[in-house]
């Protein structure tokens, strides 16, 4: 009889010990200290988007260059957070799209005798969808939509499974071979939270790129929304992009 009792007590204590330890640590540091509020920036007051005025883009590619320099993106081609595409619509209806090295060295005139109906440049980047497929497929919660509406990747938490790269309908993600984690445009999160513009917007010479608040009345983006008919890429996917295009050609996809 006594032995069973001891065993019970022992088991109980065995349970109590880690339980209380866990419970205690779950309380975390006392609320007194936990209230370390970030001074200055309040994500709840912002909701970002970008407007792209296709008819203003001169195809200089300085945005793609600045993006690589600012965010330490690999120099080799095929790693881009933003890039510029050149569309050429020929008289016979054929459409060609090219983006030599993402446009970071600019474009050279294409030699062709064919009749060109129209031609233009389209800057591309992560669309920061309000309904992001990449976030839905992430098995570990390493990519997410922040409070201010930016889709980010937690490098420490990403397991490099590439699901999100597959899921992105805009081809905006790549696997960084250095860290073996997914990488993508962050709207230059480290800049916008300090009140600076994203690097691509900073260097754009013609304001083809307009960055700002989607919901505040006084924002350059809001003016664009007021003044132009805006479209998004692949609207039929219901991803609800927050990158909005004006004067978008129907051939662009």
């Amino acid at each position, binding site marked *: 009889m006594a032995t069973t009792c001891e065993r019970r007590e022992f088991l109980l204590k065995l*349970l109590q010990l880690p339980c209380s330890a866990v419970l205690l640590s779950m309380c975390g540091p006392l609320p007194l200290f936990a209230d370390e509020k970030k001074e200055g920036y309040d994500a709840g007051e912002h909701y970002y988007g970008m407007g792209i005025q296709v008819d203003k883009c001169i195809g200089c590619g300085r945005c793609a260059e600045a993006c690589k320099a600012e965010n330490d993106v690999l120099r080799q081609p095929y790693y881009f957070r933003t890039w510029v595409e*050149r569309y050429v619509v020929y008289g016979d209806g054929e459409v060609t799209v090219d983006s030599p090295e993402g446009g970071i060295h600019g*474009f*050279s005139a294409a030699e062709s005798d064919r009749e060109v109906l129209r031609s233009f*440049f389209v800057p591309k980047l992560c669309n920061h969808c309000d309904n992001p497929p990449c976030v839905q497929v992430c098995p570990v919660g390493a990519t997410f939509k922040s409070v201010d509406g930016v889709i980010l990747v937690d*490098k420490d938490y990403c397991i490099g499974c590439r699901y999100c790269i597959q899921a992105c309908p805009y081809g905006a993600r790549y696997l960084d071979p250095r860290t073996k984690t997914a990488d993508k445009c*962050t709207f230059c999160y*480290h800049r916008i939270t300090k009140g600076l513009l994203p690097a691509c917007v900073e*260097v754009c010479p013609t304001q083809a790129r307009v960055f700002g608040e989607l919901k505040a009345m006084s924002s350059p983006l809001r003016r664009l929304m007021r003044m132009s008919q805006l479209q998004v890429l692949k609207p039929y996917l219901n991803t609800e992009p927050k990158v909005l295009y004006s004067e978008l050609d129907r051939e662009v996809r």
Partner: protein
Amino acid sequence: MRTFRIPDQVARLAVLFAVAVVALVVVRHIFVPKSFGKLGHYRAAAVDEIASQSVRYAGMQTCVECHTEEAEKKSSSFHRGLACEVCHGPASEHASDPEAKKPFVPRERGACLYCHNYLPSRPTGFPQILEKLHNPMKPCPTCHNPHDPTPPHVPGTCSACHASIARIKAISHHDSLECETCHEASPQHRQDPRSALPKKPTNREFCGKCHAQNAPSAKEIRRIDLATHGGRYLCWQCHYPHYPEGR
């Protein structure tokens, strides 16, 4: 009388179950990062980590504080919309310690050509040059101050900024017509294009001045019946005026 008591095996199972739950809680606690779930299904601390990345492009506001001369010059020039760092490259290191780190100074022609070399895909009205013909070999700053590139004299021709249109017109049957024949343009349009847009033809009679049956124009010009040809459409709804023979 039978009083209800939990069967032994159930009680033991319950204990086992409790242990399993506790184990789960413990394991979860150890492996799930602290800030996970605070803001959503992700590690809230990651947001701050991403936000702490260092800034390379200081932004034009910063440059302007010290370089008032260049800034002032640029602010009223054709280049007023350009950030300093689009030409000088990322310069936040320079901005925080000007003596230690000098920014890149783009003296080569190539730096300007990213934007100004002729490409048919560029929007109409953007000033472009043909690299091989525009004062070759000479660096651009010898004639254009990069911070105020106003050409030594106002561009003489419309082709400076409407290169694509000028080129296609040059090989068309309308080659002999000046742009001004159809577009009345004030000199101001060449200096500040958008503040004074040229006129465009507005009616069929305009083309009829040369192409109508009874028009007093050169004999070899082809004639149409202004009243019926093309119905009620404007001529340029069918003919591209800068290349009218295209069918």
